[in-house]
Every structure is written in structure tokens, then in C-alpha cells.
């Protein structure tokens, strides 16, 4: 289909602000009378606060007040693993205990140094498997796991069960969760090749570039909160509850966010923004809380690590007959996640396994706060499975591209434990396109070629994430100037989807882009509710809402024109910013004129009557404030059914130095399958950005903790091994399938997360290839692991070694 805007590049309105430094992040604001907050954080990994003596601090000149957990939770802290604003029961080093506001940060720090906090030290644990063992320490007060809607619980294995798991065997303990489909036993019985192995994947921090600073003040009973988030209205909606302010009294200001990657999508994962809000309320002054890199590390979240066991069975023809997984996920000191189940689900979806079983348990450790991180679960497992798939291909005498083709998901298939159909799935096309772009047939002949100490490795990998939601709202406005104003509540985290989804509205009304304004950046711009900008969903979810709101305005335009100029609304169409008769386009009105008429007519035309009943409370507030001020299109998106997938395929060629273990990525091609492409440059950025994350996961990133004292040793970029320019290829080639999805009005789905999974899968497969098919069964595969393997020292699976300890 020929579009005016969809599939075309444009200059997003905020990009000039980014290259000139003019766009403001939360820390860039000041306010008359602003004072500064600093945090006292827990120095030990698990404790209870017995008492706080702040008398000396509060008597200091320039100190305005203190905020403790007792202030923010007068009825006590919720019994959950959720990150708290402030806590008396820290379960990780660095968790905020109290905040002090002072004339400047130095004074606040000096005051904090004068506060005496008495802690009761509690047993702590760094390795979930230590906690699983009978008599082992528990990370939380009340257990080592959290059962949804029930509370804390204890999961304990016998010492023999723990020892057996550590030795690499299938766990024999009762899982906390078990889900399956198909006949697993028959699947393995029918398999010509079965591979069974323990595995580990590292948990590691998000490390968004912008530390989570926030500034707040109260004015006329309203809270103005300058913060950082992936989502705008979805986060503000939740933040109102966390601060305890009515939704209509919160103005959340967030024009730009310095990275999210899953950790700033929902208010519950960034409750620290409530600290300046609450302090400001208490001391009646604007409060700025600047966060440091270390603080961003400790409360900024991390991916769940896995210690697991996997068994995959392949039939003689290469089809995946059975997949059986048992995963102990590291739930960290706070937070948590469903990574392990998502990982299993992804195997079912991407490889169309005939029988799948998931068993698992999520166990706390007194390490970083855990939460969703780019492809939580799907991406960890992509890197583990890909080399195993190659091993099966080798054993069964099938080409490595071919084995992926014959297991591929496609339109009409179902996937996942719940056997959900896809809205559409063009993975076969993506595989084909990647193979062509990479010149697979010629490249694969270079596999394992040696040149001195260097060996060539070829890898292919696939990525997946569910990539679309529905049920949100859309608002667009037009005034007598005839400009289209798209009110968009999508967060500005660097994907530009707040702007690209707005273009679906412009498309409907055939508006030139320079006659459109995206209204966003702060919630007093009256924005509709959106789903949080996680799960690669924004493009699918919000093109639906913007398209729907524009359809509503289009219908109203035609009604007004027909009423004024005669005929039936169906006789009218729009072009060149006019609504006009189809038969005679001289009979019509300009958009400015029709907007003017709408405002004269009022009622449903201006949002004062006949609103969609199901609008979210947040949207209702916004609509009520806009009502009567202009011509309004408003829409509530009904729920869609089925799974809109985001898929990617990556091929890569590497050179592995057998003397140093160093990997050089010589070539990398990533192809996206995300329905119709909305914004090519934005998509390319997601492909290369996700690719860099995939490289980090495969061979670099990790946590480091001191097991003796529970102290984090990787609080900076350097120790966390965030990929740099020099760790990534000189050029990453990208492309896309670009076929429409029927459940989206412009055919689009999202793809931010899968690009990471396919790169890590391809890279780990390439490393395995360069080492004659050796499967490490761990991420990251570090240079020392490679060198040790070449030296004949087996260390492919050291329990949790890659997770929290090893350097």
C-alpha cells in the first residue's frame, strides 16, 4: 500500500534539541528556591533499621528536613519484593533508607554523615542456589521467594538435590511453577538427537546513560514532578498512586529520557522519583535529587540471571520435537520478573517445538533490583539455544540455516505454552532475506577456516518478542488554524515512537507533516493513556490509537461538511487539507473551516459529549480539560486477539583469536520482521542498538559481587563492561521484510527487543562454530572461558559463576 507518511523517514521534533543540547532531562531544570536531597543508603545487603537518630543533622545550618520510610509508609511497608521509595528493611546494598534536604548537596551529605542509623544485620545470600538449600539464608524477611497474591514463601531443596543440580543434573525438586503442552516423553522418544545440559546466564545492570535524577515542587495543590521514564502517561498514572496524589493533581514533566531498556517503563520500577516529591511536600520547597552512577546501578535495576537445565530433542528430519526447561531465576534483592517462563515460551514460538515443558522457581538474592530488561527471558535463552541448534544440525547433517527454516514460525501457526495464534508471522521471509544479504551459502564455506592463530566463525540467530498491545486511547485536536495536533502519551526514550506513531493520524487525514504538531513531553499537555513503553509494543499499540482518533475526526469532518454543504457524509473525502465532495472537489471546506464549524457546534465535536465509554480515567481527565477548546477526535481502541510477534534474524562472521580469546566481529547483518515499517531510520536504530546490547550479553556484560560482604563491585560502566565503539562492528547492515500485519491499521508491529536476541544468538553460535561446535551453555562467553577451553580446562558451566561472581 502506498502511504504518505508510513514507511518514510522524517525529522522527529526532538532530534534538534538532542544535537544542540537544548532538550532538557530532569536534572537540567532549576526552580527558584530549589534545595537538594541526598540519600543515606544501606551499606549492608540485608538488614532491618532498628533506629534512626537524626537530631544532630536536623540541627545543622542549611538542613531543611529528613524523609524516612516511616514518613512515606505510615501504615508500614507493603509486604512485597517491590522496590520501595525508602525502606526500613533493605535487602540489597545501596537501597535508600532516608533522604535529607539541604541548601546544597555538600550540606546534605554532611548531615547524613551525622545521622546514626542502627541496623540489625540479617543473613544474606548472593547465590539463589545457596538459598534453595535447606538451612540456607533467605534474601527476604519471610522467605526466599514471593508468591503472587499470597506473599513470601520458602523454597527449600535437600542438600542432595542442590548438589545434583550443581553437578549439572535435571533438578528433582518440586517446581514452584510448571506449565506444558504436547507429549514430551513421546517427543524425546522420537528424537534422533537429544541434547541435555545445565546452563547459566548472567544478570547485569541496565545502566541507562542518564542517572535517575528527579526534581519536584508543589504549587496550588498540584505536584510538578520532573522525572525520567520510558512511558509518559502510563508512568505518571502509576506514579500518582505511589506518591499518593490524585491523578488530576500530578503534572509529570519528562520531555526526554536518557535510556530505559525496560527499567523505567512502570512507576513501580522507579519509585525513587517520589522522594523529591514527598520531601518537597514536607518542607514546602522545590527539591532536586541528583543521582550518581552508583545509585543508578544499585536501584536502577538488572536483568534476572538464570541457572537452569535444558533438554532439547530433534527428529531425524531436524524438527524440534521436544523442549524441556527447568530454571532457577535470580530474583535479586527487590523486584523480580517472569524471564524464565518467557524464555521457555520463546523456544516454543521461535522453533515451533512440538512439546514443551517449563518448570521453575524464582529465588531472591541480596543483589541488585531485578526487573524487565530488553527482551527479558527471550533474549537470554536465544543465546543459549542457538549453539545447541547448530549442534543438532551438525549431528543430523542439516545446514544451520536450513534447520532454522524447517522449524520456522509462520502465519497460521500457533506458538507459546498457551498455543496462541500469530496475528501474522513472516519469519521464513526474514530468514531468506538475511541469508541473501549475508550471502550465507558462500560464507558458510569459510566456517572454521584458520589463519595463523585466528579462526573464522559463522553464526545465525533469531530473536523474538511479543510486540503489540491494545485497549488504549487516542486524542487529536484541530483549531481554526487547521493544524493537526496529535496528543501522544508515549514516552520519549529514544525510539522516536512518540512521533512515528503520531504519523498514523497524519496518514488518515492526509496531512502534510509540517502541518502537524506532536503534543507531548508533560502531562498537563492533556495526553491520552498508553500502555507502558516496554515489550516492543508502542508501534503496534499507538498507531492503533492515533489512527482511531483520526478516523473519528475524519468521520466528524464528513458529517459537518455534509450537514453544511449537502449530501451524505459518505460522499466526502479529504485531500490537501480540505474535506470535499468526492464527485466535485470544489465543494468542500478547508480543515481550518471545518474545525471552526466544529467549535461552533460543540458537543461531540469538541469532546463535550458522546465520548467513548471505555476511556481510561487518565484520558477522561485529559479530554475534560481539552473539551470545548478545539475540534476533537477521540478514540478508545478495543482489544485485539492473538500474538503480534516482533522477529529478527542476524547473521555474523567473526574471527576468534585462539591465543587471546578475543573476538573480532567482521560482519553483521540484522533483518527485522515487524510488519509494515513505519519509520526506517528509527527501525535501523533499534536494530543496531539492540545489536550492541546483544554483543554485550553474549561476550561482555555481567555483575560482580563480593560474596563475603555482598558488596557490588561493578557499579560503573567500566566494570560492567558496557560495549563501546571498539567492541562493536565497524558497520552493522540492516534490512526489513516489510509485510503488513492484519491486526494493525497501518500493518505495523514493534521490534525493539528481538534485535538483541538475534545478535546474541548469532554471536554465540559463531563463537561455537569457531571452536569446532563447542557449546559453552553460558553467557557471557568471556575471553578467559575461550582461552581455558582451548587449553583444555573445562569451565563451560560453573554454577552461577557467570552470574554474580566471576570477573
Amino acid at each position, binding site marked *: 500500500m502506498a502511504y504518505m507518511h508510513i514507511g518514510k523517514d522524517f*525529522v*522527529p521534533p*526532538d*532530534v*534538534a534539541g*538532542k*544535537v*544542540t*543540547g537544548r532538550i532538557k*532531562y530532569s*536534572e*537540567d531544570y532549576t526552580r527558584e528556591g530549589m534545595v537538594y536531597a*541526598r540519600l*543515606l543508603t544501606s*551499606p*549492608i545487603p540485608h538488614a532491618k533499621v532498628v533506629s534512626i*537518630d537524626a537530631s544532630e543533622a536536623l540541627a545543622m545550618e542549611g538542613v531543611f528536613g529528613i524523609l524516612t520510610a516511616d514518613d512515606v509508609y505510615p501504615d508500614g511497608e507493603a509486604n512485597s519484593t517491590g522496590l520501595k521509595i525508602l525502606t526500613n528493611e533493605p535487602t540489597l546494598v545501596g537501597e535508600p*533508607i532516608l533522604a535529607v534536604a539541604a541548601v546544597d*548537596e*555538600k*550540606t546534605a551529605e554532611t548531615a*547524613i*554523615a551525622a545521622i*546514626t*542509623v*542502627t*541496623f*540489625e*544485620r*540479617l*543473613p*544474606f545470600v548472593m547465590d539463589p542456589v545457596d538459598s534453595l538449600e535447606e538451612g*540456607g539464608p533467605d534474601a527476604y524477611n519471610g522467605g526466599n521467594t514471593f508468591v503472587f497474591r499470597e506473599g513470601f514463601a520458602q523454597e527449600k531443596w535437600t542438600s542432595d538435590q542442590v548438589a545434583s543440580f550443581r553437578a549439572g543434573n535435571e533438578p528433582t525438586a518440586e517446581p514452584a511453577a510448571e506449565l506444558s503442552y504436547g507429549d514430551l516423553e513421546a517427543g524425546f522418544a522420537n528424537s534422533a538427537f537429544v541434547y541435555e545440559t545445565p546452563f547459566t546466564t548472567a544478570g547485569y545492570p541496565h*545502566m541507562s*546513560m*542518564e*542517572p535517575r535524577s528527579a526534581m519536584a515542587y508543589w504549587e496550588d495543590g498540584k505536584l510538578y514532578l520532573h522525572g525520567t521514564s520510558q512511558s509518559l502517561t502510563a508512568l505518571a498514572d502509576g506514579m500518582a498512586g505511589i506518591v499518593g496524589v490524585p491523578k488530576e493533581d500530578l503534572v509529570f514533566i519528562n520531555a*526526554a529520557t*536518557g*535510556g530505559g531498556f525496560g527499567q523505567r517503563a512502570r512507576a513501580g520500577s522507579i519509585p525513587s522519583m517520589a522522594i523529591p516529591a514527598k520531601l518537597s511536600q514536607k518542607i514546602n520547597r522545590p527539591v532536586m535529587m541528583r543521582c*550518581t*552512577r*552508583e*545509585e543508578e546501578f544499585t536501584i536502577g535495576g538488572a536483568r534476572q540471571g538464570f541457572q537452569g537445565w535444558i533438554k532439547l530433542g530433534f527428529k531425524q528430519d531436524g524438527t524440534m520435537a521436544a523442549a524441556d526447561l527447568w530454571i532457577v531465576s535470580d530474583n535479586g534483592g527487590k523486584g523480580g520478573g517472569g524471564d524464565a517462563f518467557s524464555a521457555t515460551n520463546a523456544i516454543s514460538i521461535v522453533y515451533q517445538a512440538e512439546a514443551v515443558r517449563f518448570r521453575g522457581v524464582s529465588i531472591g538474592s541480596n543483589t541488585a533490583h531485578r526487573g524487565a530488561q530488553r527482551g527479558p527471558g527471550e533474549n537470554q535463552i536465544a543465546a543459549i539455544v542457538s549453539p545447541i541448534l547448530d549442534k543438532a544440525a551438525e549431528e543430523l547433517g542439516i545446514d544451520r540455516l536450513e534447520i532454522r527454516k524447517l522449524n520456522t514460525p509462520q502465519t497460521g501457526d500457533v506458538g507459546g505454552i498457551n498455543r496462541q495464534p500469530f496475528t501474522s508471522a513472516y519469519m521464513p521471509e526474514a530468514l531468506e532475506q538475511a541469508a541473501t544479504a549475508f550471502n550465507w551459502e558462500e560464507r558458510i564455506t569459510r566456517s572454521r577456516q584458520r589463519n595463523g592463530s585466528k579462526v573464522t566463525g559463522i553464526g545465525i540467530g533469531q530473536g523474538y518478542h511479543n510486540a503489540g498491545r491494545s485497549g488504549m486511547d487516542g486524542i487529536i485536536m484541530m483549531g481554526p488554524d487547521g493544524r493537526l495536533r496529535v496528543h501522544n502519551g508515549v514516552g520519549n*526514550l*529514544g*525510539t522516536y515512537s512518540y512521533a512515528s506513531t503520531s504519523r498514523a493520524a497524519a496518514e488518515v487525514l492526509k496531512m502534510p507533516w509540517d502541518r502537524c504538531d506532536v503534543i507531548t513531553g508533560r502531562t498537563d499537555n492533556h495526553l491520552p493513556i498508553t500502555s507502558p513503553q516496554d515489550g516492543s509494543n508502542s508501534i503496534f499499540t499507538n498507531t492503533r490509537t492515533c489512527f482511531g482518533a483520526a478516523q473519528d475526526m475524519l468521520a466528524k469532518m464528513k458529517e459537518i461538511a455534509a450537514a453544511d454543504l449537502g449530501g451524505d457524509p459518505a460522499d466526502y473525502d479529504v485531500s490537501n487539507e480540505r474535506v470535499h465532495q468526492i464527485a466535485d472537489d470544489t465543494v468542500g471546506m478547508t480543515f481550518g473551516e471545518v474545525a471552526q464549524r466544529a467549535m461552533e457546534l460543540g458537543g461531540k465535536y469538541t469532546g463535550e459529549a458522546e465520548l467513548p465509554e471505555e476511556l481510561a480515567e487518565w484520558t477522561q481527565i485529559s479530554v475534560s480539560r481539552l473539551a470545548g477548546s478545539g475540534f476533537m477526535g477521540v478514540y478508545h481502541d478495543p482489544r485485539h486477539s492473538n500474538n503480534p510477534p516482533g522477529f529478527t534474524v542476524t547473521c555474523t562472521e567473526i574471527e576468534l583469536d585462539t591465543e587471546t580469546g578475543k573476538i573480532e566481529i567482521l560482519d553483521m547483518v540484522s533483518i527485522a520482521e515487524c510488519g509494515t515499517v513505519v519509520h526506517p531510520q*528509527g527501525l*535501523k*536504530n533499534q536494530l*543496531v542498538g539492540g545489536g*550492541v546490547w546483544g554483543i554485550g550479553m553474549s561476550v561482555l556484560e555481567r555483575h560482580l559481587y563480593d560474596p563475603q560482604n555482598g558488596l557490588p563491585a561493578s557499579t*560503573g*560502566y567500566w566494570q560492567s563492561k*558496557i*560495549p563501546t*565503539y*571498539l567492541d562493536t562492528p*565497524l*558497520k552493522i547492515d540492516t534490512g526489513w521484510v516489510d509485510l503488513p500485519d492484519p491486526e494493525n491499521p497501518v500493518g505495523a508491529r514493534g521490534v525493539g527487543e528481538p534485535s538483541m536476541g538475534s545478535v546474541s544468538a548469532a554471536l554465540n553460535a559463531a563463537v561455537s562454530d569457531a571452536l569446532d561446535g563447542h557449546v559453552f551453555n553460558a553467557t557471557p562467553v568471556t575471553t578467559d572461558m575461550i582461552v581455558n577451553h582451548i587449553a583444555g580446562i573445562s569451565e563451560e558451566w560453573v554454577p552461577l559463576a557467570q552470574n554474580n561472581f566471576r570477573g
Partner: protein
Amino acid sequence: MNPKLTRRRFIKGVIASGAAATTTTMWYAANGQDRPTGFVERLIRINVNGQERSVDVAPQETLASTLRYKLGLTGTKLGCNRGECGACTVLVDDTPTYACSVLTHSMKFARIETVEGLEAPNGDLHAVQQGFIDQLSPQCGYCTPGQVMSAVGLLRANPNPTREEARQAMAGNICRCGSYDSYLDGVMRAAEIG
């Protein structure tokens, strides 16, 4: 697990103040909030974006703090404040420099350029800024001012770099969004239009 650590123990507040101090004292001293007694020259002139600016600077204050918090030049970002990320990169006598890791007092005779100083008086963007827009190099944008300044420094020294030379020159700037490929596209574009 060390059995000693599993026993309940009461620890007095020295731990709390110790921990708070380890990570942050240096940071806030660097923010120029110390008020030392005795004679220290504080009012100095520095040349920022072609203008002589008179500013009250503490002895241990970093250039990043002066720029952001004293001169209001918030385009210079702080990602780590300890020389790991490059978000704070400015040009000092044409050389890309981590503003978080140099003292303002050492800048008295230097020519400092920040991202705010790149646009021409008529509002035209610098070729690097335009190149970054053309290639949509930024994602979240937080590392962008630093990337811009490194690229400007590179192109002054080497107006027609190869992609590999550009990668080496930009290697001190981390981008957590992973937009390296797009930044390199932007640098190459800037060299073209520059």
C-alpha cells in the same frame, strides 16, 4: 556462607555514615559546594564558547560542574562523573576532554567549547549536528552532546576520516543505546557536508 555472617548482629551507625561517604563525598566536593577557609582564589575568568566568563569556582570544582551549575550550560551531560563514559565531553583548545575529570582552575588560559557554542550566529547548525540529524544518530540523546563534541574535535584534526579512524576517535564516548553505527554514519555525513 560464612557462619559468622548468618548470626544476628547489631551494627552501629558508623556503617551508615561510612557507606554514604564512600561513593559521594568526592562527587559533591567536586560540585564546588565546599567552603574552604583561608585564602583561595575563587573568582576566575574562563573562556567558554568565545566569551570570557567570570565565575566563582571552588578549588576542587570540575569543569562539568562549573558549566552546568554555575553557567547554566546544561547541554554538557554527566553520565558517570568519573571519566568512564564521555557524556561530559567538551573541547579544550580543540581537544575532546572529559569535563567531569578536569578542574576548572586548570582552565584559566584555555579555550573551552561546549555543545551550546557550535551553532553559527545565524542559527545554522554545525556540520556534525546536521550530519547527526540527517542520519538520526541519537537515540535517547543523553550521550549526544558528548558524541557531537568528540566528532567536532575529530573533524577539526582530520576533516576526512575513514570510518575506522572515526570509530577510534569516538571510542571514548559510550552510548548505552548502542547507536554507534548511526553516530559513525553521522560523522561520515558531517565530513561530507562539512
